[in-house]
């Protein structure tokens, strides 16, 4: 029986992973755009990205564009795999194949 991924299952982390997974492989989202797309606040988003990064599900790249710091978040291969398994489990629950 497949288990839900407890790290991804949290609503905001689910939205973060959904957003990053919708991009082509190796393409990331800039922090401000991710915040807009997920409807998160600055602190909230930062904390959840850190949780996902510790699990190895996302990579965080900090760079300077001109004089402005820019943080880009990208889903890793492990993150994409975990997200796909999580979605499959959700679908199994809906289909009644999971208790």
């Amino acid at each position, binding site marked *: 029986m497949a288990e*839900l991924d407890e790290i991804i299952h949290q609503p905001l982390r689910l939205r973060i992973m959904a957003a990053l997974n919708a991009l082509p492989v190796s*393409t990331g989202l800039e922090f401000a755009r991710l915040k807009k797309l997920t409807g998160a606040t600055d602190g909230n988003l930062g904390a959840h990205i850190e949780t996902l990064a510790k699990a190895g599900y996302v990579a965080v790249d900090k760079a300077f564009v001109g004089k402005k710091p820019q943080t880009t978040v990208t889903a890793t291969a492990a993150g994409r795999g975990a997200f796909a398994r999580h979605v499959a489990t*959700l679908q199994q629950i809906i289909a009644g194949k999971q208790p």
Partner: protein
Amino acid sequence: MIDSQQASAALDDINDVVRRVRQSRIYQTASLIIIMWGLLVFLGYIANYTWPPLGYAIWIVTDLVGIAGSIGIAAFSGVGPGAGAFAIRLLMAFVLFIAFGIFCSVVLGHFGPRQMLVFWPIFTMLFYALAGLWFGYAFIVIALGTSALIVIGYFYAGPALLLWMAVVHGGGLVVGGLWMRRI
């Protein structure tokens, strides 16, 4: 464990975010193309105003540069699987649209310079508006806003129509494109 209702809500949430990301990516690429066209047509109108006899040559060059630039931006922006075939269909739709415009304006209509000057921008704005039905309301807002200003100029701008067009068509596209990048 969660029940099927909660699982369904989670999947709905995922689908909502995926839809937002797709629209955002379309807006990011389209806005660059729109801003580029805005700058190009602004320069085109100013050049046309400065050297009226060169009007046709100016617009042929403007359009060719614009088409090449649009293809370049779309290719450089990086797109997902299946997007290549979609881009070709979109290009074909645009070619058919332009062919119909030529048929209307030259063969059927015999438009004069003033009519021609407003017909093509409004006609291409119609393409934007139709695209907006699939790709997001921002295209429709830009198309309707710009078209309304163009029509006002057609009736009231008199001999300054080319300058009016530079501001409302060229400037309208630039402002619209910048706005699209923020939403």
